């Protein structure tokens, strides 16, 4: 397939990352965005027209157009049916995070893809942020010696829309923001999260929201490292930037302060009525899409598997279970 055009279709574009993924695919040589479908025809038409790509009336019609790969960027609860529909019809699927809203759904998706020889990749773009890549290189080279602890945040702005509808999203800030950092930690050290204790709050920063908007996880990793993660949607609209992905790693030789996306100029705008940070960092979504297309073309296994998606989801599910019970929860029980 190396010299052939890679044909990609979008099943579900409700997640705004679909736009960035599509823009990156459109900028790559030898890749065709065949079209977009969404359960909301208006949304599919809107994004498709903005990106100047076709939109389709049904998922079946898009799959019937002949695709090499599918990107699933629907609401979280539809990841499973869409992945199951595409499995066996395409060689590879990129599924937005979190892989699903329940471990049972995630397991079913992984099984179906395995049964149909469909390679399933989960979209964890933070692995492609240059600072995260360099962090892993430095830690692998022994920068800190023995590592003891990691203090993490993945703050964000409250996204609204379907993200705050429990039926569609499956969870709020804790589900939305646990999986990115947990995936990075699992990848940095090749470990699993073993135990999670969590304090979670519903509607604390956004009265009446009806879903969790703040969360703190305290966890242990299988290599003995302990750490915490703040997943809160705690950046107000008036803040400088949408959020952050930070890892403060402490070991016997010193500390690394990784504010992984902090590559900003400061930009004051009278028209916007505020001062904000504007990013100049390399687009991590580009790295993710280059990696995905390479996987589609080469036939190799995905760099981020369905099992990786399930493992990260299980940590979020363990956090909710811990918050409900008030006790630490063993993550393996959630898988």
């Amino acid at each position, binding site marked *: 397939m190396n010299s052939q055009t890679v044909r990609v279709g979008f099943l579900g574009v409700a997640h705004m990352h679909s736009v960035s993924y599509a823009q990156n695919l459109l900028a790559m040589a030898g890749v065709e965005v065949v079209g977009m479908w969404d359960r909301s025809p208006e949304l599919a038409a809107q994004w498709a027209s903005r990106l100047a790509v076709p939109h389709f009336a049904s998922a079946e019609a898009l799959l019937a157009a002949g695709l090499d790969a599918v990107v699933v960027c629907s609401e979280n609860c539809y990841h499973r049916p869409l992945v199951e529909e595409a499995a066996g019809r395409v060689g590879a699927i990129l599924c937005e995070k979190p892989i699903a809203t329940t471990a049972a759904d995630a397991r079913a998706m992984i099984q179906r893809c395995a049964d149909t020889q469909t390679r399933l990749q989960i979209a964890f773009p933070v692995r492609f942020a*240059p*600072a995260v890549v*360099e962090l892993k290189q430095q830690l692998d080279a022994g920068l800190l010696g023995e590592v003891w602890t990691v203090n993490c945040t993945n703050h964000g702005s409250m996204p609204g829309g379907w993200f705050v509808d429990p039926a569609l999203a499956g969870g709020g800030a804790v589900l939305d923001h646990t999986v990115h950092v947990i995936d990075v930690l699992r990848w940095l050290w090749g470990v699993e999260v073993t135990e999670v204790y969590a304090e979670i709050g519903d509607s604390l920063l956004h009265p009446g929201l009806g879903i969790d908007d703040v969360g703190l996880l305290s966890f242990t990793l299988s290599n003995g490292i302990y750490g915490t993660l703040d997943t809160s949607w705690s950046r107000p609209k008036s803040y400088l930037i949408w959020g952050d992905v930070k890892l403060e790693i402490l070991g016997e030789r010193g500390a690394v*302060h990784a504010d*992984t996306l902090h590559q900003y100029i*400061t930009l004051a705008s009278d028209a916007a009525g505020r001062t904000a940070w504007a*990013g100049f960092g390399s687009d991590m979504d580009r790295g993710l899409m280059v990696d995905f297309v390479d996987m589609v073309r080469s036939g190799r296994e995905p760099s981020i598997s369905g099992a990786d998606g399930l493992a990260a989801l299980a940590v979020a599910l363990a956090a909710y279970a811990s918050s409900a019970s008030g006790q630490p929860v063993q993550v393996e029980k959630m898988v």
Partner: protein
Amino acid sequence: MLRIGVIGTGAIAGVHLSAWHQMPGVELVGYYDLAKEAAERAAQRYGGQVFGSLDALLAAVDLVDICTPGTAHKANVLAAAAAGRAIVCEKPLARHLADAVEMVEYCERQGVPLFPAQVVRFFPMYKRVKQAIDAGTLGRPMVYRSARCGSFPRPGRDFSAPYYADFNQSGGVVLDVAVHDIDFARWCCGEVERVFARGLTFSGRPFQDHALITLRFVSGAIGHIEASWSHPRTTFTTRVEIAGDQGLAEWDSQDRPPLLVELYDEVQGYRRSGSNPTAAVDEPYYAELAHFVEVIEGRAAPLVTARDGLEAVRVALAAIESMRAGKPVAMQEFGG
């Protein structure tokens, strides 16, 4: 496959070679250097051959990348242009305005592209500032301010240190360093009307140089550039700030970097270092050279032209003249 030849394989060539080496669609054919052992080291590390003469290199390539000290730019540009080769030339284009004019005009007559390596235009934070101006976020850019501060290129350590230390060869910190900011300021605020500068260039202090340059642009905007080879050793900082009538953009290399490492051991004591990494294709020297290839192959319009490189030299030389004379220099009348 565009065939690349590199002339001069000293310090700045290192970053160029690393970029060429990684770039798809080009072939790093080889090197020519008066110091043959430097060219041999480059060939060992990045492949390609060592050419015994400039003519031999010119016969074997499509593009020459001139990374020699500035004193050798002119002869190499003229030879490459005579041979009809596309040219990338490190900044500053030349030490003297008449030489820069001759180089640019000869390349134009020969129909040969001459790309001045004004790399600041390819640094992502500076690009983002320019993007904010182009998007109208700042309104009209009216007060420009930037700085580029390091220590003197260490005598005796770097091969090219004697070049930097000799004002007659290098033009000192204004022509070697401020030329970056002058080019970026012109990109953001347009043509320069007049220049006034003070500094250490003529202070008689060995291995020190520093300048504070005050600019007035044709648009009415004012600008300030600091260039230094007199800051504490091992430090290098840059910053830029542009105020418009509707907004302001700023960046400082001393802002918190995405990776900050603090280490301690009994032998080396406390060490602190920062890193601001990019993806390989966004690394500024790679992005710059890849852009020049795109222009040569007709896939992009040039972001920086030989005339830009020439004007940056002219403004830098005017700043030096102002420093020497203690008077403002009007650009319209300044002929070197």
